[in-house]
């Protein structure tokens, strides 16, 4: 291992974990959005979803490369993306649930990109300079994702009877998963203390201030919070994750180390 002179102490496990979470969120949502390629309801949205998937996969490459370096076990972006087992992925459960329809995909993109924008805004000032650089780049992209999905949430929610019903069903389904975004945990505490990034719970009020007015303009009813909890960011995933990984990892599992 090459000694890093700029860092007196090796990166903490929590630091690696935190960067992994960011990388896995981008990777898994990127994978889900790429499933739309060639299948979206209209050509313009097919292009938009593919472009957002590309942005996310690009971000995940930077983040997983960085996580691999911090970890110091010599794993590159491909090994991180394709050769870990399910329990080692740190993405939110929300990003791994199936696309279902354009409504659910749109509502998820909206809830998630609003969170991404707030998170990247904070991470621009990270004490981890590489993470700060990735944040500054990703923030610009996330703002476009947010604008795009917010417009569609309003158009669908405040649209026809059918589009309203499907968008409301999407919100009812996804809202409970959003609680996981803000759940307190020791990783966040350690990372926040080291000024690497915010504890995600700190972003909850700003996130609500961002999403609630749009949902209201979309004439959607926000469900009440329930005790429902998910734990994807701690590595405990839903039944959908294994299927997603089987598709995503197939090539590298069949031909380990293959390049093209």
């Amino acid at each position: 291992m090459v000694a890093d002179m700029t860092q007196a102490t090796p990166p903490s496990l929590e630091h690696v974990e935190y960067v992994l979470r960011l990388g896995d969120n981008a990777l898994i949502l990127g994978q889900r959005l790429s499933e739309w390629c060639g299948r979206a309801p209209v050509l313009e949205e097919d292009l938009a979803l593919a472009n957002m998937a590309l942005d996310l996969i690009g971000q995940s490459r930077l983040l997983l490369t960085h996580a691999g370096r911090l970890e110091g076990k010599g794993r590159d972006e491909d090994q991180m993306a394709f050769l870990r087992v399910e329990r080692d992925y740190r993405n939110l459960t929300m990003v791994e649930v199936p696309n279902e329809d354009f409504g659910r995909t749109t509502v998820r993109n909206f809830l998630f990109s609003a969170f991404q924008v707030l998170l990247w805004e904070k991470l621009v000032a990270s004490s981890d300079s590489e993470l700060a650089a990735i944040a500054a780049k990703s923030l610009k992209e996330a703002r476009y994702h947010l604008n795009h999905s917010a417009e569609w949430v309003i158009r669908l929610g405040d649209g026809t009877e059918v589009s309203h019903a499907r968008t409301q069903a999407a919100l009812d389904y996804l809202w409970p998963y959003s609680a996981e975004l803000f759940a307190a945990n020791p990783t966040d505490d350690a990372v926040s203390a080291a000024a690497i990034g915010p504890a995600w719970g700190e972003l909850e009020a700003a996130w609500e201030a961002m999403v609630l007015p749009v949902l209201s303009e979309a004439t959607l009813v926000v469900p009440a919070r329930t005790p429902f909890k998910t734990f994807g960011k701690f590595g405990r995933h839903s039944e959908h994750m294994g299927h997603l990984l089987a598709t995503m990892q197939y090539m590298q599992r069949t031909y380990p180390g293959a390049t093209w």
Partner: protein
Amino acid sequence: MLTESEAWKLLDTVPDPEVPAVSVVELGIIRELRCRDDGITVVVTPTYSGCPATEVIGLAIRDTLAAAGAGRVELETRLDPPWTSDWIGEAAREKLRAYGIVPPTGRAAVGGAQPIRFVKQALSCPRCGSRDTERLSEFGSTACKATYRCKSCLEPFEYFKPI
């Protein structure tokens, strides 16, 4: 070996594969050139994180410089500061327009929240000049462009987004 200014001139002939009307230099993605005794180091910044053209651009840079006798060409990626469409110069903006892509208007947004609303931006059609245009999608054939339609001449066109 090449001098730095020779290398800049050569790179100014390398087109962006997605938007061939402008060169990689005009696009502002070449951040620095460093001449070494045995070759040259080219510092490149990506436009978008997932831009599929990044690798093709790297190959084109290598080929062009190597063919001109630059010796060993090394590529270095620099993320900070992140690329902004503000780095596209005036001359290049006119080339984009002539090519049928409306160049980014104004300066890229820095900081602050964007208004989450149907942002109506009156763009002039690059073909007929009419301002009676509408946005079809925030995204186009690539992430860097949005798709518009001119309601006068009925032709679609692309808009290079400020970022």
